[in-house]
């Protein structure tokens, strides 16, 4: 029933031809260093444009070129082809060296997201320092996700679009080796068989409660 309205609108504001739309998307992506979402593209282009389709064409056009059209989460960006990085010494930004703890924490968040601090600590076997999380937050590589629906409703961490952008990932599903890890069951949170691992605080509590009821 809305079709009539839509059709009426479409005839009223005729969208530019697809070739023009492709040019527009090209111009917008070239102008921005940050990924631009399809929604924002649509918002900036004339009424009736279909940036998603224009992107398909544009992506094909830039295949094998010196720059490529990359999908990052639900946004798009143009990046130089990674085989040409050697030409860019001048543009190379020295990134802060991350500590081993920070790199591991980042990987755990990326592969296990959404993940709580307690879960990260369980995997690494040591407590996560505040500084590590702060650093990753500050770099805009991780952010807070939803709270877990478990007692205490702990906050979770997830990776950001900035993370995907930095590592050239379309989505967190494209993390290297993710499938294999999942197949091997290494991404499951497997609880300690009901007893006492010394560093497992949660289990201790569970056991304590269990004992209370058993007695």
């Amino acid at each position, binding site marked *: 029933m809305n079709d009539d309205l839509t059709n009426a609108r479409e005839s009223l504001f005729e969208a530019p031809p697809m070739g023009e739309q492709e040019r527009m998307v090209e111009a917008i992506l070239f102008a921005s260093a940050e990924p631009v979402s399809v929604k924002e593209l649509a918002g900036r282009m004339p009424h009736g444009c279909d940036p998603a389709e224009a992107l398909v064409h544009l992506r094909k056009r830039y295949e094998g070129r010196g720059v490529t059209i990359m999908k990052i989460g639900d946004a798009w960006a143009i990046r130089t082809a990674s085989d040409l990085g050697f030409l860019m010494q001048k543009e190379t930004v020295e990134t802060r060296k991350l500590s081993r703890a920070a790199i591991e924490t980042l990987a755990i968040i990326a592969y296990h997201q959404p993940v709580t601090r307690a879960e990260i600590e369980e995997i690494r076997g040591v407590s996560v320092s505040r500084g590590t999380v702060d650093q990753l937050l500050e770099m805009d590589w991780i952010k807070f996700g939803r709270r877990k629906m478990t007692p205490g409703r702990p906050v979770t961490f997830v990776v950001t679009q900035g993370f995907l952008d930095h590592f050239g990932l379309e989505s967190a599903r494209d993390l290297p*080796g993710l499938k294999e890890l999942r197949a091997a069951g290494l991404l499951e949170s497997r609880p300690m068989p009901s007893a006492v691992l010394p560093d497992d605080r949660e289990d201790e509590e569970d056991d304590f409660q269990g004992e209370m009821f058993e007695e």
Partner: protein
Amino acid sequence: MADDFVEDQLSVGERLAAEALIVDVGTFEGPLDLLLTLSRTQKVDLRQISILALAQQYLAFVERAKQLRLELAADYLVMAAWLAFLKSRLLLPPDPTEEGPSGEELAAHLAFQLERLQAMRESAAKLMARDQLGRDFFARGLTEDVERVKRVTYTATLLDLMQGYARIRTRDEFRPYVMDRDAIMTMEQALDRMRRLIGFAGDWTDIATYLPEGWGGEPSRRRSATAANFAASLELAKEGHIEIRQGDMFAPIQIRRKKT
């Protein structure tokens, strides 16, 4: 003979390794990290690792550290106690009366934890080996900022308009009250005046005729004077000086001096 020799060699090698580990103890990120490092000496897939052997290695490490009077953090000792417990469970035949998970289950979980940590380390390395933005591939250098064009439209409602008008038109009413006295006649003023006039009111007279000069024209002044006169009349009637009557609804109110 030869076997003994080999074994001696190994134990020397193991001892050296253990000492090297102890020197490095500060670089381990806790007992799990140490266990993972120790497990590498087994040179097998983590899935086939002997947890019993690993527990023995760990306990030997802690023992050696003690001999060297090296302070180990508490969690290393807690882990040692737990591994000693695990070891005894693994070695002794299962006691059917005993509650809780079997030694094998506990060992399997520890193996899982080690494998998971190892997998995360490898994944982290893979991640960091990826092409990275600003190092291997680059964003646009000469960006064109989106210019935010702000268009301001002004709006007002009919209510705003009316309130605005009312504000202007009633501005005078907000002057100090005393300033408006020229339009107000008080009951006292009226009473004062009527006391003097009442002596002449032998017959019924419309109360309106008692309005003083200059108070009968402008509505506001007339209203005030009328009300004051009426109130004064009531007061005089109460005092017994006059009588009041009104022929009908909205008919003129008349007063006259009370005959004494």
